[in-house]
């Protein structure tokens, strides 16, 4: 699907990334609201999914979002120490550190994986984060899935035939 979408975007010529943002209800979602009530403008590329706490976010959901074709991910919670649920974001931090590391190791561009903290008072920071994330994702272009282009794979799919005068 990711590839199909990418083709369409190529036809469109203009890359309009889609970024899934997981925001915790108490800080970052509130910051996004504050950006709104302060009328700060930012690109419309983000699609927010509200979660109670970054601790709620199972890393598999981020993989799922990329699997479904998100060009980039933003996860933002309360600053460490500020968690509404005492320490949820501390646990989340480890999970995301490992997730980000794994995905980058496997070839996902770091620019697509954006984890940060944003407090309820930081409306301006939120708008800046979104701008930054959109820039970052744009800089690496459309997401084409976890694997290389199908033709690269097909070439080597069956494995390499060992040469030799067997016959």
């Amino acid at each position: 699907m990711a590839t199909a979408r990418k083709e369409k975007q190529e036809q469109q010529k203009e890359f309009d990334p889609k970024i899934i943002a997981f925001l915790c209800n108490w800080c970052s979602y509130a910051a996004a609201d504050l950006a709104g009530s302060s009328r700060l403008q930012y690109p419309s590329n983000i699609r927010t999914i509200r979660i109670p706490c970054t601790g709620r976010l199972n890393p598999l959901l981020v993989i799922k979002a990329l699997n479904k074709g998100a060009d980039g991910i933003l996860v933002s919670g309360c600053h460490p120490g500020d968690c509404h649920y005492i320490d949820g974001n501390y646990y989340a931090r480890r999970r995301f550190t490992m997730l980000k590391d794994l995905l980058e190791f496997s070839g996902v561009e770091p620019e697509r994986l954006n984890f940060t903290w944003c407090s309820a008072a930081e409306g301006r920071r939120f708008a800046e984060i979104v701008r930054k994330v959109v820039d970052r994702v744009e800089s690496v272009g459309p997401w084409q899935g976890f694997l290389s282009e199908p033709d690269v794979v097909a070439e080597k799919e069956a494995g390499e035939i060992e040469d030799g005068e067997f016959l």
Partner: protein
Amino acid sequence: MANSYNEITRELQEIAAEVFAEHDIKHLLGFGRGEFSGLTEPVFLKKPEEAERLIFQDDAAPMLSKYLLKYKPDLQAVVAKPCDSRALAYYISEGKISRDNLVIIGINGCPGIAGNTACDECDTRNPVIVDYTVGEEMSQEELEAELEGVKYLLEDMSPAERKEHYSREFSRCTQCYACRDACPVCYCDHCYVESNQPEWLEEGSSADKDMIFHLMRTMHMPGRCVNCGACEMACPEGIEMRSMTTHLYHRAKELYNYRPGISPEQSTLFSDFDKEDSEPGFLQ
């Protein structure tokens, strides 16, 4: 020094007899030789006379810890490679099995398993919890000497090269999930793969999905994977997938000084935190 297979085999047979004499065990879980195949296979010994069936060879790849949970209310004896002993420590830390129900015969100075690349970078050559041991312990100096200059799997590749590597490797995946089934710390009764409500992993056999399977599985592994290499050894397609879990294994060690299964008292990686944990690559 790593011990020889024959020496370990000889000692195992002696100690097994001792274990039978000293404990009222349901069975002694170890390795034996396949009657027809000549291959090393898991055996469940019940009688002291069977002690001589025990062997240890370079194809003793299966993780015996995997079988213990099935019989956990009973007292079981088990021959444990160092990696197996870590899996056991991990089980105990998660309350999956009681230490009191285990008689552990640990293999010191494990000589490793043929073809298992995890053994080349193994950082635990003596078992972490034991009741009996066979073989000489390997000293820390020896271990460090052996590890010197060892490169971890795919460490030298660029992310893009790895992406290509995985694209190639997973194109062969037949979704048998032997990697998961062979893994000592994958012990869920119902794997997320088999859930369709919600459907974490969609059905279909494209390489893309196999990649996602492995990414998701790897995210269940940090703080659990003991880097035994059983996943790769089990793969009938020779897919090199261990690099993912191994990478996080080493990263958890670097970032959090965390090694799974080092002690039965340890918390899991993801159920613990430090306020000062680093935030590599987080947006500032």
